[in-house]
Structure formats: C-alpha cells, structure tokens
C-alpha cells in the first residue's frame, strides 16, 4: 500500500489500537485450522517417522529377501508407464489441438474416456478377454484348430502387461495437461516460428513442445505417482512392487513394522517424483507474453497422414475404453439374472455411503479452509492449508498404514485405560470403523476438493463482498445472495470428484474398511482374485459408469476455458 519514496517527515504515527487488540484476541478459526492440519498431517508424519528412524534389522531382513524384487518392479513399472503416457498423451494432444483431420473434435473428447477406468478394472477386463478361455484365444483356436500349448500367446499377466494397462488409463493425465498447454500457447508464437523459417514439425519440436514441457512433465509425474500407488493391477498380475509388498507384509505375514518401512520407502519414491517435477520446472517460468488469443492455426492433414492421425487417436480410445467397456457390458448382461439383485445393491449402497460421506466431509472441510484463508489474512494461514493438503500425492496404501498405526495405538491405549480403571474392555473404537477409512479419504482427496473450492472462491472478489455490504446486505445476506449462487457449481464439482475417487479407491479401502463392509471396488477385487471375472463385471462396470461423470465435467470445463475457439 504505502510506497512513497519520500518517506515520513513526522514522528511515527501512534500505534494503532485495534492491531494490538487483534493480536491478543484468541482466534478460534486459526486454532481450528491448525488442529485440522495436524490431524491430516498425522498419517504422513507417522510414515515419515519410519523414514527418519529406520529399523536396521528389519531393513537387513527385507534387503536380503524381497526388497530388491519390489524395488525393481516398482521402478520398471514407473519408467515404462512414464514413457508410455508421455508419448501417447503428448502425441494425441498435439494431433487434436494443432492438426485438422476427420473426427478431430470427437477424438478430443473421447481421448479422455479411459480416465473413467481405474487401472485394476481395465486389467480385469483384459484378463477376461485374453485368457486361455477368453473370446480372443477361443476364436484363434476355432480358426486354426490349435489346442492347448500348440501356440504362443503374449502373457498379459506380467510386468509389461501391467505397464500397458496403466498406460492405457493414465495417458489422459498427460493428454489433458499437454492439451491445455498447447491451447494456452498464443497462436502468435507458432506463427512467428513459421515466419522465422520453421516447418510445422520444427515448430512443434522447437517451440510448442518446450513451451508445454512443464505441463507434460506435470502430467507424466501424476501418471507415475498413480502407477506407484496402484495395487489392484499389480496384485492381479502378480507383479512384485512396493504396494504388493506392503499388503503381503501387512495382511499376509502380519509384519507391521516391515510394512511400515516399505510404506516409508514408497513415500520417499513419491517425493522423489514430485521433486523431479519441481526441478524440471526450475527457474523457467513460461509466462505467455501476450494475452491475445486467436483461433489456433491448424495443420491440415490429408490422405495417409490423416488416416494415421485417426489411427493414433482411435487406438487409445478403442483399447483404453471401448473394448474393455464392451467386454464388461457383455459379461454384465449375461449375469444380470443371479447375483445382481440383492448383493449388488448392498455393495453399491456401501460404496455410495462411503463416497457420499467422504464427499460431504471433504467439501465441508474444504469450505472451512477456503473461507479461513479469505477471512484470516495472516501469513500462517496459507502455510497451514498447504500442509493440510500434502496428502494428495501419497499412495492410498501408505495413507492407510499411516492412519491405522496411530488409530490402533489410540484404541489400545483407551482399552488398556478402561480395563485398568473400570474393568471394561472397549476394544476397537476407531480402527476398523467408517471413521478410519473416511479419515484416510480426507488425507487423500481433501486437496482435490479444496482446489475446486479455492478456484470458485477466487472468482468472488473481495470488492464484490464490499459492494454487497454497501448495498445494504448483512454477512449472511451476502452469503445467500452472492456466495451460494456463485459457489454452487464449484462445490458440486468438488463433491463429485471426491465421490468418484472414493468409488474407485481400492488399497486404502481394503485395509481400513469395517469388517464385512464390502464396496463395489472391494467386491470386484475379491471376485477377480478368485478368477470370477464375469461375476466381477457388474461392480466393475458400475465403477466405470460413475467414473465417466467427471470426464464429462472436465471436458465441459476445457470447452469453457477458451471462449471463441472450438476446443471440443
């Protein structure tokens, strides 16, 4: 505010009285936010504690036995999926954004569809399709007359198979961000490069790609982090990774300490990915030097090139969405008769309950944090809120163990106290209840809700609040007439995103769900583990159908982001 270089020629102004009073006044909002932050940080802090205080003998045992396999598996998988999503996502984004060929607009939307599939669901789909008894091999045998063992067929249940599955459903992250970056690039920079003598291909590699690099790296990092957190796919394919290791040690062998150590290692891996992403952005902040947008120039593709472009955009949609969706639909159609009625409704109800509770809570906490930042302008507030949202990158299995260790300690502590004092055993109060699993969802998905709420709040400028007050509205009146109508959209979107993520979530739900409380995701997982892929299809299909909702929301948001240009 005050920036006059002439400075003050008088004695300093009297110390403002209100400022002093404000300092002493307890600030309930700040206290509440700090408490929430501590709570949400706890699971990560617990696991981080294992990084800082490693149990040497546990490590020695792990290193001598299973650790090398887990680390190699996770590393190879991360590299393969990273490379695959990078190429597929960037390439398709470039084609639909900056080239012209038949079906371009349709592909621009359809390329997002694989996002509806959790990796484990597409894995179940392809296992059913490509197994010995599946339709593809059966057809092959019928056509050739071969029998068992007469022919070679690629083995899906392998590390390359898992990498393929994950690439097929994770490339949309790169596609989405790369496409946004390409769209954001002013048409002028591309045109300038052409006037300076670049061919279309050269201007892609020398201008568009470097400018979009932060976005592409960001998308790839997201895909890699999802890969590291995946449990369902690698478990089904029998690929040893850090997540399968955590589950085997925790659930299979009851080695809690060793599992926590693996979780700590996974946490470190995720932060390494995050750091690489940050570093690659480096000092290069690509701010666009012009705000003037015109219709993007598009390179007209003809003949064979146009056909190749259609193939390049069509294959990911076909393999990543259409084919597995068709398979799941087909199997569901054959099984509607016997188990779909009662069981399915119970699992769907459980999923719906968990997802609704988590979505409502995430939005409530998100609103609290969002408004706390708006009302309390102290320096500490944004820091607290950022700390509370650290969990967005942490794998579900890691969060689950981070939640379970302190909750179990709490339960045992209370139980011991009650038995000693009153002779009553309270047993498990929090762990193994809906509280524990909801807590884990908050750590994981609150950042997603908060992001949407913050961007919604940013659209209501402080001057709008002031204008409404001066036009005679009280604080509640402003909320009712200005904030509610303007925030409704972003709040609903935030709730929807969390709802869908909870529906799809597998590892944390598996570890933390209450006893005998199966969700659609858990049921699909259990049936698939028993090789009942056809039976698993209804639950899997339901998850995919719900997953399409955010895809539609996303594509509409993109379409709105650049008025005047037909993005979709």
């Amino acid at each position, binding site marked *: *505010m*005050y*920036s*006059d270089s*002439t*400075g*003050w020629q*008088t004695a*300093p*102004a*009297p*110390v*403002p*009285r*209100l*400022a002093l009073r404000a300092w002493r006044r307890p600030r309930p909002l700040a206290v509440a936010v700090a408490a929430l932050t501590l709570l949400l940080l706890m699971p990560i802090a617990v696991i981080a504690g294992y990084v800082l205080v490693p149990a040497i003998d546990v490590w020695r045992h792990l290193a001598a036995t299973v650790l090398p396999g887990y680390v190699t598996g996770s590393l190879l998988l991360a590299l393969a999926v990273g490379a695959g999503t990078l190429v597929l996502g960037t390439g398709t984004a470039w084609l639909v954004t900056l080239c012209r060929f038949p079906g371009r607009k349709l592909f621009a939307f359809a390329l997002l569809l694989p996002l509806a599939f959790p990796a484990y669901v597409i894995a179940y789909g392809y296992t059913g399709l490509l197994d010995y008894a599946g339709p593809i091999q059966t057809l092959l045998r019928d056509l050739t007359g071969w029998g068992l063992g007469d022919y070679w067929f690629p083995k899906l249940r392998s590390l390359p198979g898992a990498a393929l599955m994950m690439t097929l459903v994770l490339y949309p992250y790169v596609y989405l961000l790369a496409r946004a970056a390409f769209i954001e690039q002013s048409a002028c920079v591309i045109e300038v490069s052409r006037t300076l003598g670049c061919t279309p291909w050269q201007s892609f590699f020398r201008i568009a790609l470097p400018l979009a690099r932060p976005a592409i790296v960001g998308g790839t990092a997201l895909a890699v982090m999802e890969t590291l957190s995946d449990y369902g796919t690698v478990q089904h394919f029998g690929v040893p990774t850090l997540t399968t290791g955590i589950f085997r040690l925790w659930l299979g062998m009851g080695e809690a300490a060793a599992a926590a150590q693996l979780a700590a290692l996974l946490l470190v891996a995720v932060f390494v990915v995050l750091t690489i992403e940050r570093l690659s952005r480096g000092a290069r902040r690509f701010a666009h030097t012009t705000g003037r947008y015109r219709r993007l120039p598009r390179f007209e593709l003809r003949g064979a090139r146009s056909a190749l472009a259609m193939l390049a955009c069509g294959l990911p949609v076909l393999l990543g969405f259409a084919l597995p969706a068709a398979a799941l639909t087909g199997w569901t159609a054959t099984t509607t008769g016997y188990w779909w009625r009662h069981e399915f409704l119970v699992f769907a109800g459980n999923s719906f309950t968990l997802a609704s509770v988590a979505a409502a809570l995430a939005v409530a906490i998100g609103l609290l944090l969002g408004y706390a930042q708006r009302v309390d302008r102290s320096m500490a507030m944004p820091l607290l809120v950022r700390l509370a949202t650290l969990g967005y990158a942490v794998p579900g299995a890691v969060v689950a163990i981070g939640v379970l260790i302190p909750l179990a300690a709490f339960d045992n502590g209370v139980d011991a106290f009650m038995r000693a004092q009153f002779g009553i055993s309270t047993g498990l109060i929090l762990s193994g209840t809906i509280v524990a699993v909801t807590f884990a969802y908050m750590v994981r998905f609150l950042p997603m809700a908060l992001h949407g709420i913050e961007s919604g709040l940013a*659209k209501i*400028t402080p*001057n*709008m609040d*002031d*204008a*409404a*007050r*001066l*036009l*005679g*509205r*009280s604080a509640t*009146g402003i909320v009712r*007439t*200005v904030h509610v*109508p*303007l925030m409704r959209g972003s709040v609903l979107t935030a709730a929807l995103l969390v709802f869908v993520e909870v529906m799809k979530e597998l590892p944390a739900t598996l570890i933390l769900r209450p006893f005998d409380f199966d969700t659609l995701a858990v049921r699909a997982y259990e049936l698939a583990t028993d090789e009942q892929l056809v039976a698993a299809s209804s639950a899997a299909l339901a998850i995919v159908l719900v997953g399409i909702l955010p895809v539609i929301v996303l594509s509409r948001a993109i379409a709105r982001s650049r008025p005047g240009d037909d993005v979709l």
Partner: protein
Amino acid sequence: MTDALRLEGITHGYGGRPVIDRLDLTVAAGETVCLVGPSGCGKTTALRIAAGLEPVQVGRVLIDGQTVADGRTERAPERRGVGMMFQDYALFPHLTIAENVAFGLAGRAPRERDGRTRELLDQVGLLDYADFYPHTLSGGQQQRIALARALAPSPRLLLLDEPFSGLDARLREELRADTLTLLRRTGTATLMVTHDPEEAMFMADRLAVMRAGRIEQQGTPREVYDRPANAFVAAFFSQVNRLDGLVVGGRVSTPVLDLPAGALRDGARVEVVVRPESVRIAPAGDATAAGATIALVTDVRTVGRASLVRLCMHGSGGREWHLEARLSGRDLPDVGSRVAVSVASGQAFVFAHEKG
C-alpha cells in the same frame, strides 16, 4: 448545512506501517471532492474508512453530522447509507444488469424497486440491456452499471474509487462528462479518489492533494493550480521547470527571473517552479523584450495542440540553465536561434528546497 462526510484526525496504519497521518477532510452536501495523489499515498484507504470497510484506528468519521465511527464504536457499512463504486466495478456475474442495479433495493416494494431500476438504467442509457449479464457488456457499459447500482438506493454519500482507470483515453473523457452530469442532476455528495490530476481537476468542486498519508493542499482546482502550496503540488498537475536558487537579500535570482523570497531566510536553498505554459518567448531583437533574457533554442517538438521548446541560458559563473516552454502558436523558433525569454508575472513559485 451539515457536511455529508467529515473525517476528523484520521490516522491509520497496517502492521505498524503508517498509511494515513492526521487526515481532516469534509464533503459538503451536493459537493464533489476529489482526493488525488500518487498511488500508495493512502487515498483509497481513506475512502474505505469513510465507507466503513476499514475500521477506524484513530480519529472520527461523521456522515450527515452523525458519528458513525470513532475507534470505539463502528457502524456497519451496510447501515451507513453510503454508495461506493469500485475500481474493478465488482458487478455480480450471476445477476443480470437489472438485478445488479436492483441489488441494493431489496427492502423496497417490488413495483417501486422495478421503477427505480428502470429509472437508473434509463439515466445511464442502458435500459435496452436490462436482461444482459455483465460479462457481455463492454468496459464502458460495465462502468455505467456500477455507477447506476451505487446510486440506486439514493445514498447520502457516493464514494468513487478510481472510477475511470480501466478505460481507454477517449472513453474515459466521455464517461467523465456523463458521470459528472449524473452526479449534478442527482445532487449526490461525492468523494472520488484518483491518481489522474486532469481527471481530478475536471470532476472536482474541491480538490485535496494527498502525499504519503497527508493532505498537502485543499482548494478549488483553480486555487490549487494557480497557488500551489509546495513544489510537490505544483509538479503534480503538470510538467514543471525546477530551478535551484539561493535567497540573497530577500530575493531569489535566476537568469530568467528575479523574485521576492517571501518569508524564506537569507541563505536558504530554494526551488523556483515555473510551468512551461507560462514561459513566453519573443524574437531576440524585439523591442518589447526589454528586461528579458536571451536564450538559445536547443530543441523544438510539436506534440499535437502545443509545442515544446527547450531553451538554454547562461548565468553568472558560466552555469547553464535549462527551461522548457510550452507554446500553443504555430509560429515556432528554429533550433539554434536566439530568443528573448520571460515568465508571465505571478506564475513562478518559490519554495524552500524539500530536502537539504
């Protein structure tokens, strides 16, 4: 007649950093006062204190003769009967133009509300746009809507925060005139904040020039322009020539001027401020130029309606003095020629040097 607004001894700071220092300001009923000064001088804070958006720390705010804030009690902004127009207009994006204007009329009967809304939309010439949403309108149209919205509840006092800053030059001039007409017609007491001196002079019945949290001078635009209180005020409203000098024998002497030093002591370092348009030139040999100084023309630039002529004079001890003249005629001297220079009487100002 009671003043529409009275700020008494307002002192304000953020986190120990002073922003306003003992500010006194009044706006009489029906009067338009412009608070003008460079950015960061505290003028917007003063406006927000008047509105009640910023609590008073030290001092008193009176609206229509009633104390609304004095550092202990604070009347809420919505209960002050004050209208305010914001720099970014702050229109509600989810409401139509008509709904935006009607926003402050919530307590009225529906028929009265609609009538008042139509009346104001008509006054700003946007009745045809009643059902449009703000983002579909141009900047100038949004400005008018913001003004109509602030005026709709018939506020006792209107506050304008840089109301024309988001507009291009031509539109700005047009809207200034329209706004002034509307304010005169409604007779609304107005306090406007701007950093643009020309805008302030155009709009204001009375000006208050602010610097670093203090009011340097108040008065009508003419008074402030013709009798600036100090070099800062003089320089704020136009480019000026600043000539250094010393008080000797109660007078300040420069090659082009010899002025009484007023109350300034002998030996004091002073600044002589001369507006470019009060510099006169004549052909060097002209008889009417008796007592004038001879100067060399070093540069001539035509900038539309006027031309700028740079002059160089030699004083005692071989010191060079530079002076810029702003001439409106077509008859311009040639670069390199010699001319006789004089300054219109009463249009050069002597001030003590501000810093050592």
